[in-house]
């Protein structure tokens, strides 16, 4: 599974594998004669998309597919600055409150209709409509006025300074007005048959099996070299790996064990290329803070002391990753390395639990308080062996301090829709894929606790609310840094999540693909420039 073009959004990730941003690719004209058109890439994905309208889905499986199909006004460049995508250029007023986008001319939707500023306005109006079930509305509520100046000029005015303003005009908000104007966005067929402006267009979705995309001949940056992209849904990692071995798949995310031990043979060296780079995501143990036990900070801290994060990195990731201490990843500017850390210390955990009134009265090894045993269930998603392994280790470590944990793994969409969105859980192991902008208002602000919103643990902290507000209201990077540093300190103290680890992405791609240019942030950003030399081409699109 990978993540295309959407690094500006936050979303639930199914399993840690290979995420990437879409960044600009320089035309390599001097080599252009060796490029050849044709062939398809078959990608293995462990989860099925839920909804292909980007603003409506908050899972990475959906965003990865819709990322091929849709564009935003802006996108990230290789050095992680913002450059134009559908927009040719833009002007930002002195005070930072007004952005005027000048759109590229001659871009067509995949059905042939011209793309204009009306489509951007339509997308904006859709996402702020109260009926639209989107987790990403907040950024667009900041807009005071959005207007179409002419066919190719779009102007937005903000009431207050808003740091993520420009980045928010990524691919969430551009929708074809001519198709969706009269539809109910929450129920439309379009969510399963999208039409975008991107390099690949939707062809077919066989539920539970695959999504087929084909090259967009009219793509405004030039037709992709590949004829098509097939995303095959294979929930079981072992089956997926076997498919890779028989060369039925061209690109999957490896598990740490597969990376280290199962892909060393000559066969793999000859036929595949492996990559390894830190992901923009982290895995955490989240508590339902509405639950009477977990509402007590002491209990959460005790649990943190009972866990050994190093052990998780070593045992689960086989060392291919880092421990996590907050919602940002190491080596990025908002990351604060000096927050409170909870060393592995079961004795201290027991003391903290005793202070909170939990004692093992009947000597069965499990703590009690007021006649109730300390038992809870950790939910996670099925098919992600890394998370289940993490859960098993956590279960064992908590057992040592007298807490009994059950593990329940659930099918992905049921997990998100019935348990996370409805807040029916005690604790979960999940991952966030995070944006490049440090604004995480949607995850941590106390107003974001409604159904389908992302603060599903119901975290509430006034200082964090204020800092989140402060961090997004200034363009001064030092001031923002201060705010986000402080947020990390508070989160480390309050522990709404226990931040576990930042896994490395471990993609493997068939060696027949050329044009892959690894960067620190990944490989897949330039997939429309990947190609297969004529003599190595394998698949032909059936006419």
């Amino acid at each position, binding site marked *: 599974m990978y993540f295309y073009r959407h690094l500006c959004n936050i979303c639930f990730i199914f399993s840690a594998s290979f995420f990437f941003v879409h960044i600009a690719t320089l035309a390599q004209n001097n080599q252009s004669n060796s490029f050849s058109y044709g062939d398809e890439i078959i990608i293995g994905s462990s989860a099925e998309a839920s909804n292909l309208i980007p603003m409506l889905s908050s899972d990475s499986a959906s965003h990865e597919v819709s990322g091929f199909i849709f564009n935003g006004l802006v996108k990230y460049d290789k050095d992680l600055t913002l450059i134009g995508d559908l927009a040719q250029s833009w002007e930002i007023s002195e005070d930072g409150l007004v952005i005027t986008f000048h759109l590229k001319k001659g871009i067509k939707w995949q059905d042939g209709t011209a793309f204009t500023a009306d489509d951007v306005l339509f997308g904006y109006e859709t996402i702020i409509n109260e009926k639209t079930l989107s987790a990403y509305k907040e950024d667009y509520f900041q807009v005071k006025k959005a207007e179409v100046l002419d066919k190719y000029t779009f102007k937005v005015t903000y009431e207050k300074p808003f740091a993520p303003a420009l980045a928010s005009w990524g691919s969430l908000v551009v929708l074809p007005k001519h198709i969706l104007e009269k539809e109910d966005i929450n129920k439309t067929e379009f969510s399963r048959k999208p039409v975008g402006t991107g390099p690949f267009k939707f062809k077919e979705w066989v539920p539970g099996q695959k999504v087929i995309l084909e090259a967009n001949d009219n793509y405004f940056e030039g037709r992709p070299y590949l004829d098509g992209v097939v995303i095959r849904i294979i929930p079981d*990692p*072992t089956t997926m790996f076997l498919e890779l071995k028989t060369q039925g798949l061209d690109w999957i995310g490896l*598990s740490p*064990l597969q990376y280290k*031990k*199962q892909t060393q043979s000559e066969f793999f060296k000859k036929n595949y290329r492996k990559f390894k780079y830190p992901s923009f995501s982290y895995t955490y143990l989240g508590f339902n803070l509405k639950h009477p036990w977990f509402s007590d900070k002491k209990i959460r801290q005790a649990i943190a002391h009972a866990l050994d994060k190093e*052990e998780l990195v*070593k*045992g689960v990731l086989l060392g291919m990753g880092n421990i996590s201490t907050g919602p940002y990843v190491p080596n990025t500017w908002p990351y604060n390395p000096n927050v409170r850390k909870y060393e592995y210390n079961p004795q201290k955990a027991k003391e903290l639990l005793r202070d909170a009134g939990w004692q093992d009265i009947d000597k069965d090894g499990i703590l009690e308080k007021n006649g109730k045993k300390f038992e809870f269930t950790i939910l996670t998603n*099925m098919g992600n*062996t890394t998370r*289940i*392994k993490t*859960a*098993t*280790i956590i*279960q*064992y470590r908590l*057992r040592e301090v007298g807490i009994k944990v*059950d*593990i*329940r*793994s659930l*099918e992905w969409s049921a997990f998100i829709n019935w348990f996370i969105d409805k807040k029916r859980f005690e604790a979960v192991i999940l991952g966030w894929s995070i944006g490049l902008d440090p604004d995480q208002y949607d995850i941590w602000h106390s107003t974001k606790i409604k159904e389908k919103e992302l603060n599903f643990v119901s975290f509430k902290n006034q200082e964090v609310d204020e800092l989140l507000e402060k961090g997004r209201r200034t363009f001064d990077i030092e001031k923002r840094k201060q705010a986000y540093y402080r947020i990390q300190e508070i989160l480390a103290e309050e522990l709404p999540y226990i931040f576990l680890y930042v896994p490395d992405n471990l993609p493997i791609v068939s060696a027949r693909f050329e044009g892959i240019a690894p960067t620190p942030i990944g490989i897949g950003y330039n997939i429309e420039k990947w190609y297969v030399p004529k003599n190595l081409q394998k698949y032909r699109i059936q006419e």
Partner: protein
Amino acid sequence: MFWKRFKKNKLAVIGGILVFGLFAVAIFAPLLAPYDPDIINMEQVLQSPGAAHILGTDDLGRDVLSRMIYGTRISLSIGFIAIAIATIIGVILGSISGYYGRLIDSLIMRLVDIMLSVPTFFLLLTVLAIVGPSIWIVMFVIGLTGWMSIARLVRAEFLTLKEREFVQAARSIGASDARIIFRHILPNALTPVYVSFILGVAGAILMESGLSFLGFGVQPPTPSWGNILTAGREYMEVAWWLILFPGIAIFITCLSYYILGEGIRQALDPKLKI
């Protein structure tokens, strides 16, 4: 008479000894297991079988032999309890059906037909997906979906036995229906039930392994053969011992139960001459 005939069947005796052996392993698990089955040790992950760990260690450094010994408990108790439930239901419904006949018989037998027409394994998966997996639910659901053949067997015995003289005699002295069913007919109708009980246990163990293998059965860290096998599947290429040994354990157990069951059937069958 039974013993004499049973002892002559060498294979069945071996099956019996193996079954008893398994029970001994289950009962004395804490004494036999060299390690605590739940101890995680990241220093000893995926070690191949050797002196320290006779059957190697798994992906979390747990001792496979110890986990399998404890897994015996789970597998055997699920097999036994599930089939006990199935047998109780089957015997009661079968007796009522066979004894009373007519409408009651038709109703119960149609229920049997309905239940038989539903593939048990998928019914199990559905129920477990809704209620959530746990050992007790697995036992109950296997029990509740496995009673039909026993009910039919008991009913068939009842149909012939209820016309016999001793039943008429009991009735003529005014014995109640319940007394006739449970004291007079049932003890004579149980022979086929013993056999199907033993064979059923093997089936239930397989069922549990299958469910655990799919992740719907016994949940981690509780070891059962099925879930040791599942955990091992991911490591098939690098750690063969994780799937070989639980596989062998399931195979031997089911085989022992089958030959024991078959042996008992032959020993109890008066028509067979040995």
